[in-house]
């Protein structure tokens, strides 16, 4: 059994995300309070809650963009995997997957596009592909552009793209390296009908592939139908959680009804 950090966990090895008593403070403001969650690999989590409930903070901590003020968030090699993958000590020694390794399997779509306006669509994807250490960039980039419908604009600067096109490229960027964990913060914002359709089918395929998805949205989003679990946050805490084995639909329809009443 080798020590964590020296083990190279194979890229396809799935993992759980565990929040243990996570608190995040920004000065006097507490965005997350004593948050404990265990998200299993393969779950499709709909993250709900009002503005400021802590959804974005939770996603950013999961993306390793922020560290908790107290408590910890870890990626644990999935318990079901220890016997199969033969990666010694990865899950058994409980130290979690090292951040730099974990980052290779995380993709995020956030509030900003995370794209370079002065590079072309193809150059953006190629750059990030290289940064993530991908070997088959020559095939992945065109495939990614083709998939999101931007193949014809591959050589155009992102600066010239419409909002919807940028969002599509942002999603393609997040998916390029085949992440096992997808963090989505209002991913449908700005997408037109065609983009939404593509996004929906892509998400469905990812879910079927066993990718873990945490999607934060409070719009009426058809993709929510794909969810296997619904978690709602309020005031930085978990308010409702349909659980790993539960049925999210009841919670989702309840929250939808509430939203309708508000509007």
């Amino acid at each position, binding site marked *: 059994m080798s020590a964590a950090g020296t083990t190279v966990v194979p890229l396809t090895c799935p993992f759980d995300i565990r929040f243990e008593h996570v608190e995040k403070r*920004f*000065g*006097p*403001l507490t965005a997350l309070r004593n948050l404990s969650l265990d998200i299993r690999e393969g779950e499709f989590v709909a993250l709900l809650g*009002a503005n*400021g409930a802590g959804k*974005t903070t939770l996603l950013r901590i999961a993306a390793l963009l922020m560290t908790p003020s107290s408590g910890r968030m870890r990626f644990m090699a999935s318990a079901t995997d220890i016997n199969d993958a033969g990666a010694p000590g990865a899950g058994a020694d409980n130290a979690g997957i090292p951040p730099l390794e974990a980052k290779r399997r995380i993709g995020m779509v956030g509030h900003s596009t995370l794209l370079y306006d002065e590079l072309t669509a193809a150059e953006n994807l190629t750059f990030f592909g290289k940064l993530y250490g991908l070997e088959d960039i020559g095939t992945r980039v065109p495939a990614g552009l083709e998939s999101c419908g931007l193949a014809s604009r591959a050589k155009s600067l992102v600066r010239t793209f419409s909002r919807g096109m940028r969002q599509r490229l942002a999603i393609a960027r997040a998916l390029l390296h085949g992440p096992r964990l997808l963090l989505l913060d209002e991913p449908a914002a700005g997408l037109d009908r065609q983009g939404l359709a593509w996004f929906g089918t892509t998400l469905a395929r990812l879910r079927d592939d066993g990718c873990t998805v945490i999607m934060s949205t409070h719009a009426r989003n058809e993709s929510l139908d794909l969810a296997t679990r619904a978690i709602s946050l309020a*005031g930085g805490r978990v308010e409702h959680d349909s659980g790993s084995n539960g049925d999210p639909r009841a919670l989702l329809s309840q929250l939808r009804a509430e939203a309708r009443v508000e509007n």
Partner: protein
Amino acid sequence: MKSRIAITALMAALIFFAGYAALFIAPDERTMHEVQRIFYFHLSAWMTSFAAFLLVFISNIAYLVTRRIKWDCLGVAAAEVGIACCSIGLITGPLWARPVWGIWWTWDARLTTTFIMWLMYISYLLLRGLLEDTQRRASLSAIFGIFAFLDVPLVYMSNRLWRTQHPQPVIFGGEGSGLDPTMAKVLLICVISLFGVMIPVLIDRYRLQVLRHEVEELRFGLEMRRSDSRRGTIKAAL
């Protein structure tokens, strides 16, 4: 309240005694006579400012390691005190140089270092004034503070190297060597008294900074609650 009066009285006594020692106890210097007596405060100011900036350096490292805001507060207090002592050094230097050597300024190692330190730590405070987020302000100014302090020996060294290559009249150098015993004692008195003044001021500025920080937090929290009740949501500072 009583302790404050006592401390202030003690500080006044120290300064008075140091001044008395410098003016009357110290023997007359051979060539420079009266004016030379400034030297006791000039050198003491230099030492206290250096000690203060060393404290800034330590506080900066401590903040980055522990993330406790009190270190950030201490860093600010020490920087303020250091700049004040630096200013004393920068004023007494020319005051001494002019009557004796006929020039206001010279780029000797100590004066140069004092001047650059003064500039750097004023920039340190300026930087803080332009950064709004508390935690970011603390960590970014800590990084700058560390770089600034690492620069101090480099400034000193570069000046010494330059002077060995381009020999200049030695103006402030040489007091350290062959100091008359009484002079050395007076110097010690002045150094101790300046430290004795600096430390209570430092503690006071530190407490002030801690209070400032608390007020800032309270104000921020209040604004959040105000906008919260107005809009029914808490605007997340993300």
